[in-house]
């Protein structure tokens, strides 16, 4: 998985691309660090360029949700498509995390 981030006012948008899977735990640490930006209120995970997510990757979304909550930051997952959307639906992640198409 690769990612790039963009800051705009009180929002950070992180665009993930490639595959988010069990070998990506080290990158998760880097993304969590982005939550520590000053004055951050909203954290958008843009999945529109993500091709694949496995169960470990879904667990990482939940970890990010918890980390955001602890900092009183709103986390939004945006733009999942194809197999990624199917996996999110199958795991009912939308019951816990805000998903925006």
């Amino acid at each position: 998985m690769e990612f790039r981030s963009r800051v705009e006012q009180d929002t950070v948008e992180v665009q993930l691309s490639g595959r988010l899977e069990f070998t990506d735990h080290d990158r998760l640490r880097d993304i969590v660090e982005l939550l520590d930006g000053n004055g951050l209120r909203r954290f958008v995970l843009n999945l529109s360029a993500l091709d694949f997510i496995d169960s470990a990757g879904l667990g990482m979304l939940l970890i990010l949700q918890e980390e955001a909550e602890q900092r009183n930051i709103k986390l939004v997952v945006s733009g999942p498509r194809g197999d990624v959307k199917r996996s999110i639906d199958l795991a009912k992640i939308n019951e816990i995390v805000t998903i925006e198409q």
Partner: protein
Amino acid sequence: MDTIPSPLRPFCVVRDRVPADMTARVTARFDVNGFEPVPSDAAPPWADALLVERADRDCLREAFHRNPFLTVELGEGGDEPAALMEDWSGAPAVEPGFYLSLTTGTAYGLQCAVLVCDELARRGALSADHRANVEMCLHEAIANAIVHGNLGISSAAKNQPDGYRVFGQLLRDRLGDPAIKRRRIDIFCRWNATTIAIAVVDQGGGFDSGATSPASDGKARSGRGFVFMRALASRVAVTDGGRCTVLHFDV
């Protein structure tokens, strides 16, 4: 002058190499009912095996294109006699089918499920319609075999404060242990007109398959792998004390 050896080294295990007790054990492990075994004296070309040194994706694709039944990565510093003593040689040859044996160090990060599904498609076993389900289930089975099986890392590591950092450190530590990296992930595929069956075998400590939850707690950080497999595969069986997961897909 020294010559550079070919990375692909053919040999035949079917003719004279597979011990009878190994064959009996793996027959019980994989339940090959419904698949025609290859007579041991027939030894057709596709039943030959290829040994691969320093396997990477391109090397494995090249090996697959020679249509071996067995493709086996040698362990680090391994040679052919040593490789034959390792616990990789898992399956009686079936036609059609193939068997891939990799070290954990190689399998981690190789996206094995993509590689295997590409090969199933190339051999005409897997259509585009079924690909997504097969690849997802196989990926989850392989991930479990690597992380929880051979690397011996429990999901419980994630369920503590800062658990993802602990989990990441455990991954790095275990992958840095040569003895653990050498443990094998074996993937055995066979198919017929109506079914694809794929077995994923590890060399870890096993687990109690009855303890896997039928449906994951929504907020749980782990445990969805088997949920996905049970939802997307036609049948899932766990044998060998949790070291072998067999996925069946009706096609």
